């Protein structure tokens, strides 16, 4: 137990948590915006994967990581545009549309990978570029904080900015208000002249953009190559974090960090001679405990209301 605390109280652990949480939190924010507009966007995983692929391949061909990042964002938004066309214009069930997009990206990226590199496994043979790591001048000299917050990939800082921007957008701008209105009751929103489809499309495109940033981080920051299905469920973990955030962007962020922390912990604990089955259940137990705590809280709240 002491060892666990010893690990968790090092600045390196804090650094690791941020590194692990980036794709999860981007996915959670993507889910948050879509969900606020009343769309369950389960295609986040597929959007991330597509963006990861397009980003790394574009950076290899242009030899410029930033162009790769822009291409990744466009790819994510294109996926979102496809999803919004099918679900908002053609009225497909958005869960089915999401499943279709996830399956599509999982196979289509491998197909393109094979055409481009001749390999179905990884893009390792391409000399792709990664986004830079940033050492923050003054912060890096502050004893503990410097080691936690300085030296991350640029997308980690974009992530922190994204949390604040998403908050400001949702609570301080007319667009945020309309997104929430459309999500709560589309008919009421329509009756006061809000173009529901337009607002939902914008929300989905933003959701695709955020998912794409998470995907680009996977292949151009976290790792330096693309491999098939490399997102490995992080989009869905983001969806879970969003669900536990109860529609509050700070809670969503907190939950994502909690998931990231337990994931990092399960990796760090493997240095000790503990049974690996137990260690690997930690993140899932954490989710379970979280959901139970949330249910108890909700139950009490409802009861008080009922009385």
């Amino acid at each position, binding site marked *: 137990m002491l060892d666990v605390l010893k690990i968790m109280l090092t600045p*390196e652990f804090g650094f690791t948590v941020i*590194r692990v949480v980036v794709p999860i939190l981007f996915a959670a924010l993507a889910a948050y915006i879509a969900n606020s507009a009343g769309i369950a966007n389960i295609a986040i995983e597929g959007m991330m994967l597509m963006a990861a692929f397009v980003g790394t391949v574009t950076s290899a061909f242009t030899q410029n990581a930033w162009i790769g990042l822009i291409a990744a964002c466009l790819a994510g938004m294109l996926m979102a545009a496809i999803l919004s066309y099918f679900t908002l214009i053609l009225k497909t069930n958005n869960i089915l549309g999401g499943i279709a997009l996830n399956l599509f990206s999982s196979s289509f990226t491998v197909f393109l990978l094979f055409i481009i590199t001749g390999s*179905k496994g990884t893009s*390792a*043979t391409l000399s792709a570029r990664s986004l830079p790591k940033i050492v923050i001048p003054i912060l890096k000299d502050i004893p503990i904080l410097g080691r936690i917050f300085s030296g991350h990939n640029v997308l980690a800082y974009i992530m922190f900015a994204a949390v604040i921007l998403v908050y400001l957008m949702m609570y301080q701008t007319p667009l945020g208000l309309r997104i929430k209105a459309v999500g709560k009751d589309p008919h009421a929103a329509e009756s006061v002249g809000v173009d529901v489809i337009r607002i939902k499309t914008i929300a989905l495109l933003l959701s695709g953009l955020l998912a794409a940033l998470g995907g680009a981080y996977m292949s151009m920051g976290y*790792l330096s*190559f693309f491999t098939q*299905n490399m997102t*490995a469920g992080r989009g869905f973990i983001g969806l879970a974090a969003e669900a536990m955030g109860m529609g509050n962007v700070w809670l969503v962020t907190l939950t994502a960090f909690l998931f990231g922390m337990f994931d990092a912990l399960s990796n760090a604990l493997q240095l000790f001679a503990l049974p*690996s089955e137990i260690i690997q259940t930690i993140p899932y137990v954490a989710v379970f405990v979280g959901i139970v705590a949330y249910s108890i809280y909700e139950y009490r709240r409802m009861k008080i209301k009922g009385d």
Partner: protein
Amino acid sequence: MKNLLKVLLALFIVFSFVGCAKPEEKKEGVKVALLVPFRGDQSYFDVTANGMALIKAEYADATTTIIEMGRDQSKWENYYLDAAEGDYDIIIGGNWEASPTFEKVIAQFPDKKFINFDWDVAPSNANTYGMFYKANELGFLTGLVAGLVTKSDLKYADPTKNIIGAIGGMEFAGINDFLYGYIQGAQAVNPDVKIFIAYANNFGDPAKGKEIALNQYAGGADIIFHAAGGTGNGLFDAAVEANRYALGVDADQALLFKNDQAKYEKILTSGTKNVDLAILQAVQRHLAGTLPYGKLEILGIKENGVGLAKNDVYNALPAAIRDIVASYEAKVISGEIVVKSALTLTADEWNAIKASVQP
């Protein structure tokens, strides 16, 4: 018009049967079909598929076919049935996942010849030859390298700590066999060495692999071996980031990074599972009439079933290290050293072994 169509159809049917009934008129080379779930893992299945290229290189008149069955296991039986009904002399399939299906199909075709390229169970049909590889001997070889490198004065080694690492895909006997061999190899040349052993619980999550590897490097390991499939790709990224060494598995994994010097020079060698050579040898013996159908053969270092990738990076290692590795390799071949296997260990025994090497 309708009649004409009918006639054409009738002709078509008749002639298509004629085609089938035609006996073999000309002497052709051996026809070999290989069935694998997919290619492109840059590792295990790609090495297996390379066996077909080796056959082609050896026998110019041979016809080789590689059939990718896909990941949907429910379709595998049909692929095997199609291949068994097809015009092949030898049908190669199997591995731990597909073998039960493969065996089921084999039982229906007693006149055909089959090779199971990787399964630890003896074939239940007399027309099947089975092959299996000594993963523990593969791990032993990489363990020798790791145990020697960690106490050497190589550029990225850290002789002060004497810690090495290993990442497994999942914790089951087949993977533990690699790791147990690794432990024995490292201890043979470096009795006090300490070893981190971790599992990613996933064969396809390189980010997780990188995270675990970074933890082990931060904990003092200076060389890490993996038996974790695609997850292991993350290990090589971590090696570059931490400026430490890595060891590949199944195929010569450094080859992938020929144009990325920083990565290439850190993958000192790979423990190779020579499924391609084994397939070639089996086909050669089939043609010579000496392949023992109905039997399972377990291929180790001696039989060329497993080995070390002796590439440029490996050959650039100090001769002292390579000589010691070679001497132990010879001892395993001569039978002087018997590498113990994890396949027969109980969970408790394995946990005790892991705990005994824990830093």
